[in-house]
């Protein structure tokens, strides 16, 4: 066995390599995003994902091996959800003043996000197991995977749907809302946090701190409501 090969065998199995690759890919993608002035299409999550995917494919590394390194990053999704309390607490006065619009938008948005995916998906003939995996797509990853798990869906597939929905929303939101001529940062942030959870929230923080705060609140509230709504909606659909 050559020395180079032995080194590769060691590295490819250690969490160190894949953790480093994850961070390096993100740093590169984030630099590009910065260089383009945070252009929506230069979304750092999107470009990190295909870059890492290509590396895994080129080295025929299984996803399980990759995840052993990347899990340290994935773990922080939980603490990040808890940390949403900080901007929320800091802006509590603004938030309390807009409690009514938030609650109304939460109910309408959550039902539309869930209802539209089930309606369009079943009209286009997607199988039931895919629909179950897609149902909680607008909710942050840790929570969505939990919902899919309790319903007998595939949590790994749900995680992918969640990431895709997040990237999609983060790319669409700025041009869409500029087109609709809506300039209120609270409304814009709340909508993207509800539809596109953490990736949308990250996008909102890039654009304006108040938008980011409202996105974070929407993400937290929608996680609560969707956890209750998804089992009800799928029950209706199965009838």
């Amino acid at each position, binding site marked *: 066995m050559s020395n180079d090969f032995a080194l590769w065998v060691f590295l490819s199995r250690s969490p160190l390599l894949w953790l480093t690759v994850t961070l390096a890919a993100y740093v590169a993608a984030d630099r590009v995003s910065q260089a383009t002035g945070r252009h929506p299409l230069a979304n750092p999550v999107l470009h990190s994902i295909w870059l890492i995917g290509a590396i895994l*494919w080129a080295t025929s590394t299984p996803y399980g091996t990759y995840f052993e390194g990347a899990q340290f990053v994935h773990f922080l999704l939980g603490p990040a959800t808890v940390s949403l309390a900080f901007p929320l607490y800091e802006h509590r006065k603004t938030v309390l003043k807009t409690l009514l619009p938030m609650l109304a*938008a939460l109910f309408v948005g959550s039902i539309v996000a869930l209802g539209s*995916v089930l309606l369009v998906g079943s009209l286009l003939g997607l199988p039931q197991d895919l629909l179950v995996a897609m149902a909680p797509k607008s909710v942050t990853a840790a929570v969505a995977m939990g919902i899919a798990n309790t319903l007998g869906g595939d949590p790994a597939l749900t995680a992918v749907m969640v990431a895709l929905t997040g990237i999609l929303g983060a790319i669409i939101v700025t041009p869409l809302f500029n087109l*609709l001529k809506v300039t209120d940062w609270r409304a814009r942030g*709340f909508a993207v946090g509800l539809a596109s959870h953490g990736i949308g929230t990250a996008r909102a923080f890039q654009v304006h701190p108040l938008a980011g705060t409202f996105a974070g609140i929407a993400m937290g509230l929608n996680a609560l409501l969707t956890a209750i709504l998804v089992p009800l909606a799928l029950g209706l659909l199965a009838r």
Partner: protein
Amino acid sequence: MIAALTTILLCQLAGEVLARGVGLPIPGPVLGLVLMLLVLGLRDRFRARLPDMLTGPQLETTGKTILAHLSLLFVPAGVGVVQRLDVFGAYATALAITLVVSTVAALIATLLTFKLVLRLTGDREVSQ
């Protein structure tokens, strides 16, 4: 820094224990968020009687550092797409249409409801 991180993890841990122990349909980290709000409120109320370790800006700084890189945290789960290329290949068009239509619908519905109720309650725009 370590005390701050411990506080954040403690909130999440308590949230998980509460969610699973009582069997609430609410996810653990979301309960952790609510608990952290309580911690912050109590801290500011009893600020004078607490040790410096708890009243410094470290808690906020640590939390905001994690939030500043929120999108990074979704990368490992997103890379999972490589495992599911068969599913995505088989239903590519239907999946793409469903995700785009549903995401746009959710964005617009939320935005318009928020704006409508804001106007009904006589609030002024915040767009600076």
